């Protein structure tokens, strides 16, 4: 039954793609931080979700932007999976795949665009991201937007830390934030990082 199911599903998905019924393709990508649900839309990556299941809010946003045609599509996600593998193996510092922030609000887009420009291994504070996004006074809202980043790792919100030099928060869990920074910078001090450079 399982192989019958897999074959039937593959044929169905091929036909759906051919008919243009797929707007966004997804699959689960294995990583050292556990399974990641990765979705790619017409303009690039729309979601990377820890735990291997889509987040309901992200999904609703994707559907609002691109409709309900969100279907499994391993091949479409392959380039992202490859870059993630290379990143985790320490062989990639910059992601080349396009990132699509269209489903987000203009404010979230500005904040995450600023976040996306933080180089590998660097640390910046939420306040600094707020400044770079042109919202000096909206530091807390900026923290919210960084925290709700639907494309973690690729949009490196793990490089954004609290002004007091501690790690701050992370939607994927602080352990994962620590591990990502460890990968990029070496060991992480127990209480977080010393005062940020920015």
């Amino acid at each position: 039954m399982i192989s019958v199911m897999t074959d039937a599903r593959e044929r169905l998905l091929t036909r759906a793609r051919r008919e243009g019924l797929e707007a966004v393709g997804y699959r689960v990508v294995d990583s050292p931080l556990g399974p990641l649900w990765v979705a790619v839309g017409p303009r690039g990556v729309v979601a990377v979700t820890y735990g291997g299941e889509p987040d309901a809010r992200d999904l609703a946003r994707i559907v609002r932007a691109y409709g309900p045609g969100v279907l499994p599509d391993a091949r479409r996600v392959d380039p992202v999976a490859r870059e993630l593998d290379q990143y985790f193996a320490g062989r990639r510092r910059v992601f080349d795949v396009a990132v699509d922030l269209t489903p987000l609000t203009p404010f979230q887009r500005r904040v995450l665009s600023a976040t996306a420009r933080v180089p590998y291994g660097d640390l910046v504070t939420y306040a600094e991201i707020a400044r770079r996004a042109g919202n000096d006074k909206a530091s807390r809202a900026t923290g919210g937007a960084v925290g709700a980043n639907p494309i973690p790792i690729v949009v490196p919100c793990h490089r954004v830390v609290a002004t007091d030099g501690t790690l701050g928060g992370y939607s994927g869990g602080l352990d994962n934030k620590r591990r990502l920074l460890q990968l990029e910078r070496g060991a992480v001090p127990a209480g977080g990082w010393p005062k940020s450079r920015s």
Partner: protein
Amino acid sequence: MSVPITFGELLDRHEREILAYALRMTGDRDDADDVYQETFLAAFRSWPPPRRGSERAWLYRIATNKVIDASRKRKRLVRMADLQLAAPDRDGVTMADLAAAVRALPAGQRAAFVLRRVEGLEYTEVALILECSEEAARARVSEATKKVREAMK
């Protein structure tokens, strides 16, 4: 469970039962595969489901119509291997006998019989899928059961 908002969610939740239903209704893997594919493609094309929370009945209804369309086009011999899934156990009756009796039913009665007796759906669901009253669904199942029993004698 919340209403599925993407094709992928609909597929994850219902594809197994729809393929199993298609196998039981057609008795043939290739035909069942066609019915499964046509059902979901039709669902995607005519998205969203007609009423909130009714997507399961909606899919069964589409699948039933696809089976009826397919059986109008051609009649096939039933394969034993596929029918292992389809027929409930009963002493003294071979799978092939039972399957043949089910296959001999008119499409509407066959659908009612399989949905109720094999899939174990409630009559309210059977009625929703077959777009008839609950009484009519009961009548169809009862008529089908009688015919199957007759055929088994």
